[in-house]
């Protein structure tokens, strides 16, 4: 079948069952937007205020739905505005296909208006970056891009079309192929594998070895990493943990991979890890990490990390093995497949002695009374009053750590947070994407006053598309996490972290046509949240907090995991 070049791009999107794209138009991508106009009944385009917001929205859409997100932008500044969003998706292994257009072939490399080497810039922060110069290759490249983004360890892919490639006067050959077929045949396998696979699954011998190691272990600890979430392996992981009867520490990216309220959960591990998690890590004799790369925020000091334990890493990406922490054993495969194989051979264990040592270390999680609103009160109010299955998107900093600590996440995709790249301004975009992909769910956006200023212009997107997103601003008038470091490590020299400035977030919300609330006590917070949840529109709650609120506990970067700089507080 002959079809116009830009129509082929749209058809390829439909082939991949894409119904929503996020983006921002511009000069070189005009041909695509013109075609999108004809496809507007089939593909919904969400126009954001800024390309970065679109990138985060596509990312949030992908994380919350498990599908591949799609984001459009024009050449030059459009493409460079995506960069932070692409890197965020890359560090957190989120499958997003970014489509940009560049100047025409006749202008390529001539420093034309809005020209930039998009594929060159994207190379280190994508799984693959394609520059398309021949319209006949459009279907192949599109299919391969989606296959690469979704397969193996997911991640972002950039396709940069030259403007002449999208010229509607050209016709190309196109045949519809269901995505399941082309991901298996026309995708990575044929094009990028040196030879056919002999053993496409995890090695049964490796699984057997781990089962033996488990049999010999008395004090095992499980780490639930982002791989459990991306691989949607939560059920298999839960069965595995319950049969193993071992404490489960959850990384920031693993939030939602294992129920936060489960009796075996010990909470976060690492820099702001709970005492229970960090002590368990130090005392265990077998550490099984699933889909976790032992980043410097988890394994603060790689040499002393789990020093008494045999370390086992289960990961889909071979390059993660022995990268940060040297391991004793590894299994390569998707978390779900490996865990299902393990579960098939795993007897029910009972480890009351080990559990009695670790689980009582968990701090009580009831907010103390105080005349002033505290972060824990804010989050407790949310936990008790917002729907249990609400999706939570966070920005980065203290509010992020508090949210992960005090809220419970029960399914993959419930927590959307920039764990790897630590992108301030990620939350609102991600919340927009999540709400678009999950119209039946409540989406909450947790942010700090510093983070919110970075991307609050996306409130116009919230208003325009009628999204009932509730933004909760943890407003302590400072870059809290940086201030916390300055307070503890830099002799209280608060260099450029005090945010004693506008805007008034309540008025800002109103200026964007949304509801605004302010809360300085628990009662006000409860009232504001109830109203925000029931008002039927987007809302912002400005929570006024003390400037010196800290995230507890805390271990300094590079220190052994039990050298707490700040203890759990409250009960201790």
């Amino acid at each position: 079948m002959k079809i116009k070049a830009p129509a082929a791009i749209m058809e390829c999107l439909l082939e991949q069952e894409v119904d929503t794209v996020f983006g921002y138009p511009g000069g070189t991508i005009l041909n695509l937007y013109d075609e999108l106009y004809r496809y507007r009944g089939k593909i919904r385009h969400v126009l954001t205020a800024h390309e970065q917001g679109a990138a985060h929205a596509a990312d949030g859409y992908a994380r919350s739905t498990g599908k591949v997100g799609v984001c459009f932008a024009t050449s030059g500044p459009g493409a460079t505005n995506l960069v932070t969003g692409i890197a965020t998706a890359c560090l957190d292994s989120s499958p997003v296909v970014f489509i940009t257009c560049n100047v025409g072939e006749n202008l390529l490399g001539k420093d034309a208006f809005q020209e930039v080497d998009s594929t060159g810039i994207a190379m280190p922060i994508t799984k693959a970056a394609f520059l398309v110069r021949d319209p006949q290759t459009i279907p192949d490249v599109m299919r391969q891009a989606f296959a690469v983004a979704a397969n193996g360890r997911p991640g972002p892919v950039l396709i940069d079309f030259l403007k002449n490639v999208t010229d509607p006067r050209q016709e190309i050959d196109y045949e519809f192929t269901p995505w399941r077929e082309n991901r298996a045949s026309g995708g990575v396998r044929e094009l990028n594998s040196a030879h056919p696979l002999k053993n496409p699954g995890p090695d049964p011998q490796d699984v057997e070895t781990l089962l033996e190691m488990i049999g010999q272990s008395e004090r095992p600890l499980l780490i639930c990493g982002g791989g459990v979430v991306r691989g949607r392996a939560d059920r298999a992981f839960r069965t595995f943990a319950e049969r193993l009867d071992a404490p489960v520490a959850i990384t920031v990216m693993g939030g939602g991979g294992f129920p936060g309220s489960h009796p075996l959960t010990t909470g976060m591990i690492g820099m702001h890890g709970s005492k229970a998690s960090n002590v368990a890590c130090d005392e265990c004799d077998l550490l099984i990490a699933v889909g976790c790369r032992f980043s410097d925020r988890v394994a603060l000091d790689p040499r002393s990390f789990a020093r008494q334990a045999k370390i086992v890493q289960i990961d889909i990406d071979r390059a993660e093995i022995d990268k940060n922490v040297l391991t004793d054993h590894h299994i390569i495969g998707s978390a779900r497949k490996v865990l299902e194989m393990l579960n098939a051979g795993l007897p029910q264990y009972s480890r009351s002695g080990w559990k009695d040592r670790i689980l009582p270390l968990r701090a009580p999680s009831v907010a103390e009374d105080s005349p002033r609103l505290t972060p824990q009160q804010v989050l407790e109010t949310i936990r008790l009053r917002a729907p249990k299955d609400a999706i939570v998107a966070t920005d980065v900093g203290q509010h992020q750590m508090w949210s992960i600590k005090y809220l419970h996440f029960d399914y993959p995709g419930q927590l959307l947070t920039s764990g790897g790249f630590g992108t301030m301004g990620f939350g609102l975009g991600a919340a927009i994407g999540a709400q678009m992909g999950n119209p039946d769910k409540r989406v909450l956006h947790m942010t700090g006053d510093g983070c919110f200023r970075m991307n609050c212009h996306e409130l116009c997107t919230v208003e325009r598309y009628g999204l009932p997103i509730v933004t909760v601003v943890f407003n302590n008038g400072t870059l809290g996490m940086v201030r916390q470091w300055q307070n503890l490590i830099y002799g209280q020299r608060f260099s450029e972290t005090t945010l004693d400035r506008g805007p008034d977030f309540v008025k800002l919300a109103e200026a964007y046509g949304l509801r605004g609330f302010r809360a300085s006590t628990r009662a006000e917070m409860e009232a504001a949240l109830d109203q925000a949840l029931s008002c039927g529109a987007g809302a912002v709650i400005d929570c006024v907090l003390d400037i010196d609120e800290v995230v507890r506990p805390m271990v300094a970067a590079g220190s052994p995991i039990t050298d707490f700089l700040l203890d759990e507080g409250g009960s201790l």
Partner: protein
Amino acid sequence: MKKQTSAERKLYTLCILVEDIPGVLSQVSRLFSRKGYNIESIVSGATDRPGITRISIELAADGLMIEQIAAQCRKLLPVKAVKIFDEESCIRREIALIKVRAADRTARDEIIQIVNIFRAQVIDVDRECLTIWVFGGRSKNTALISMLADFGILEIAKTGTIAIERGRSTIYDDSKLREEYEYGKNVL
């Protein structure tokens, strides 16, 4: 009882088979700059298989560094195979073209004698200079160059080092390691 890797720094050669597509050399080489590693030499050339290019990179590194960089290389989509070689496991060769001053007949004769000892060849002659071609391991080539330095070297052009495994095994062979990487690229 963690896995042991060599902490000793030595010269490794990474042989990388890649698809011959635009930008692939920069994709591979930027991994080295990203990690802050300095490439000693890099050679790219055709192989016995159409569309497949072999990149040979020489690098001073310790065991952990070289494993890590190889792992990152294997993840790149156009990369088909990566093998790590050290001194014992492979044969390394390089070529040098040396333009050396030969002002008179005596100098010329002496240079030709040296060239014969090293089994190198004179490939161009001029009244004032000779151009010499030498093929061999790094130490042989360095030795020849230092001998010729006495006469005055005008210019040197060198290739990087190419390497191939000793014995029957080749870079195309399957291994468990390779399957583990293929899995990451292919699993649905």
